[in-house]
Structures are given as structure tokens and as C-alpha cells.
């Protein structure tokens, strides 16, 4: 047997891992990216004449049962029709046994790229609210994402926010559940900087929506990180979402979204207890113009008093 040089070896590896769409209605265009779970390709849907993003999971379904389960769960996720959840158009198997999802191809930038472009704090918080709303919707339908991070959130060209990569989502209360992998206890699924402590410990069977709340808190922390003037209140919201004990976190993504909305409207939030001075400062900040008008009136009054005396 002949020696395989490094160059030939790398070529064989890429041949083996590349997508092969011959048994589908898609034509390969280019590779968009690669990750631990699989690669994402840009492809053309020949029937509908549109571009789609196809995610191919690295390893084949090893048994027919596991493959069918992956497809069933992908169908559940495809049923999450929400403007903030990237629509799944198709799911199936390649000729070599690998499972793929075809999703809407989102033109835009990832949340981390969007933040790096200098988005204001207010804009970041509005986008974050949209993420929370999408996640809350998924939770309401029994789906936990398990891999929320800035790289899995897209800001589309119209400013729309889409949560991607539901490939390791868990269907709550289904002990056999995993959209991709059979993740029994002990297996760590997620991305290190954004995963909850219970996820890091591999307690997959006990995971609930609060694991996603933690990840949302980590995303919020990321968005606040490079901003010059971040209030204690904003940091308190992030801290509450990222509490080590899941009982101390927000119970739902909707609660987190509501606190962000209150922060944006200069209303008191549940994560932070204001003292009297802070409450007054917040009210004055929110009603700045009115306060200035009244001050102007009083100043005018004082001016008139002095002029009438003289």
C-alpha cells in the first residue's frame, strides 16, 4: 500500500466530508462555514429556483431508527413558524446517509459581526429583545435550543433577527429527544462560553428552558461588553439571567424580554431594586424635557421677581 502524503490525505479528508447532493433537488454552490456538528453550504433549489442554506450533519445516521428520529424532530422544529426562527424548508438524507436540513438563506450579518460594526446600545438591546421573543416562542412549543450564542443569531438585510442552528435542540419531556445526537447524561452539548452550568456538567436529561435563559444572559453580556456606558440595571439583568442556580434566573424568555423593554422605556426592572435617589434619577431621565420646561418656568419666575424688585 502506498504512502499517503499530507497533501493527499487532506484532499481525501475533504472529499469524504464534502456534501454530495446528487440524490436531492439541490445544486451545490459553495461552502458557507464549518462547525463541530457539521458544515453549512449554499445551494440552489432547482425546483423553486432559490438559494437555500443546507446544513449537513457530520456523521451518518447509524441506524434507521435514529435517522427517522432525527427527521421527526427536525419536522417539529420546522413547525416553529415565527419571524425570529429561521424557517426550515426541507429535511432529508443524502445518498451517503447523512441528514441534512435546508433552511432559508439569510443574507446579513451574525450578531457578533453586527455588534462589531458599532451598533448603539439601544439597537443591540432591541435586537436582543427579538431574540428573546423567538426563543420564548420555541419554549412555548416545547423546544429548547441549547446552543444560543451570537454566532447563531443573524441580523438580516432588513434588520430582522433570526435564530439559527436548532440542530442540537431538545424537545422537552421527550427522553429520547435530540434533533441530532442521542445526548444522554454526561455528554456536553453547546458552546463553552455560553452554556449553562448544568449543560457543562452534561445533565442533558434535566435541562429545561432555563438553560437557554442562561445562554441568553451570556449573549446579553456579550452585547454589553464593549459599550462605554452600561448601567447597573442592564448588568443586573444579565446577571440574573446568568445566575448559577437555575431557580434564581428568569423563569421564561418572555420575562427577560419584558425587563429589557422596561429598561429601554426607563421603567423599573425586576432584576434590580432601586433606591430612592435612583428612582428619582430614572424618572428625571425619562421625563427630561418636562423637567427642563418646569425648571425654565421657575427660572423665568425668579428672573421676573428680581426684575420687578429692581
Amino acid at each position, binding site marked *: 500500500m502506498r504512502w499517503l502524503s499530507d497533501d493527499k490525505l487532506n484532499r481525501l479528508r475533504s472529499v469524504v466530508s464534502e456534501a454530495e447532493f446528487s440524490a436531492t433537488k439541490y445544486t451545490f454552490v459553495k461552502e458557507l462555514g464549518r462547525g463541530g456538528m457539521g458544515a453549512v453550504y449554499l445551494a440552489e433549489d432547482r425546483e423553486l429556483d432559490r438559494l437555500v442554506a443546507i446544513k449537513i450533519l457530520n456523521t451518518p445516521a447509524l441506524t434507521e431508527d435514529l435517522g427517522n428520529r432525527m427527521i421527526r424532530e427536525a419536522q417539529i422544529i420546522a413547525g416553529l413558524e415565527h419571524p425570529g426562527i429561521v424557517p426550515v424548508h426541507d429535511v432529508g438524507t443524502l445518498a451517503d446517509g447523512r441528514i441534512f436540513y435546508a433552511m432559508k438563506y439569510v443574507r446579513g450579518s451574525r450578531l457578533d459581526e453586527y455588534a462589531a460594526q458599532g451598533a448603539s446600545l439601544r439597537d443591540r438591546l432591541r435586537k436582543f429583545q427579538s431574540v428573546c421573543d423567538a426563543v420564548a416562542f420555541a419554549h412555548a412549543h416545547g423546544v429548547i435550543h441549547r446552543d444560543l450564542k451570537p454566532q447563531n443569531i443573524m441580523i438580516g438585510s432588513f434588520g430582522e433577527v433570526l435564530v439559527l442552528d436548532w440542530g442540537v435542540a431538545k424537545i422537552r419531556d421527550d427522553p429520547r429527544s435530540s434533533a441530532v445526537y442521542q445526548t444522554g447524561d454526561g455528554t456536553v452539548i453547546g458552546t463553552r462560553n455560553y452554556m449553562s452550568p448544568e449543560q457543562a456538567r452534561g445533565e442533558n436529561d434535566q435541562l429545561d428552558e432555563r438553560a437557554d435563559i442562561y445562554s441568553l444572559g451570556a449573549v446579553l453580556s456579550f452585547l454589553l461588553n464593549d459599550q462605554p456606558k452600561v448601567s447597573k440595571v442592564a448588568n443586573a439583568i444579565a446577571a440574573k439571567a446568568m445566575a448559577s442556580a437555575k431557580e434564581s434566573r428568569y423563569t421564561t424568555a418572555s420575562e427577560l424580554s419584558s425587563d429589557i423593554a422596561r429598561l429601554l422605556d426607563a421603567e423599573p426592572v425586576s432584576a434590580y431594586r432601586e433606591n430612592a435617589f435612583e428612582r428619582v434619577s430614572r424618572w428625571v431621565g425619562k421625563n427630561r424635557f*418636562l423637567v427642563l*420646561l418646569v425648571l425654565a*418656568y421657575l427660572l*423665568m*419666575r425668579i428672573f*421676573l*421677581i428680581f426684575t*420687578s424688585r429692581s
Partner: protein
Amino acid sequence: MSKPLIGVILGAVLGVIDGLTAWFTPAVRNELFGIVIGSTIKGIIAGIAIGFFAKKFHSLPIGILFGVLVGAFLAWLVAFMQGGYYFEIILPGTLVGLIVGFATQKYGTPVEAN
């Protein structure tokens, strides 16, 4: 809180403050009580008018303009009845109208559709 009510409360409060500043004019200090009452009533009337206007019409610039006009008019009436101190009465009165006009447009429960 409804917009007319905001108008009434703010008009009354500013009317009281307005009236109390008459204390700094020794010539009218004896009539302070009457001035305060009159000023408060003027403020309430302005507040009601401006508040009801805000209930019907949702436009910050127009609401402020209406408040200014109402405040100025009522203040002019008072100054006319006083026979003097036009500047000292109309200017603050106008400003009160502006403040109430702004506040009733910005705050308070909007009108509900029938």
C-alpha cells in the same frame, strides 16, 4: 390617568406656584390669597381645555401650540382685568400653557376608539 386630569393637576399646581410668586411683589402682597385662587383657577381652566384638546388631537407640536395660545389668552385676560403687569403675567402664563400642552400630549391614557 386621563389627559384632562393631568391637565387639571398640572394647571392647578403651576397656578398655585404662579400665584405664590406674587408674594415677591410687595404692592400686591395683601391680595396674595385672591391672586393664588385666581391663578389656580386660571391654571385649572387652561388644564381642562388643553387636556381635552390632547384627548382628541394627538400631535405634540399642535398640542404645545394650543397650550401656548390658551395659556397666553387666559393670562392676557387676567392682566387686562388687573390693568397692568402684562409682561409679568402673560409670559409665565404662556409658559404654563406650553408645559401643560406638552405634558398632556406626552402622558396620560390616550383616547379609546368608540
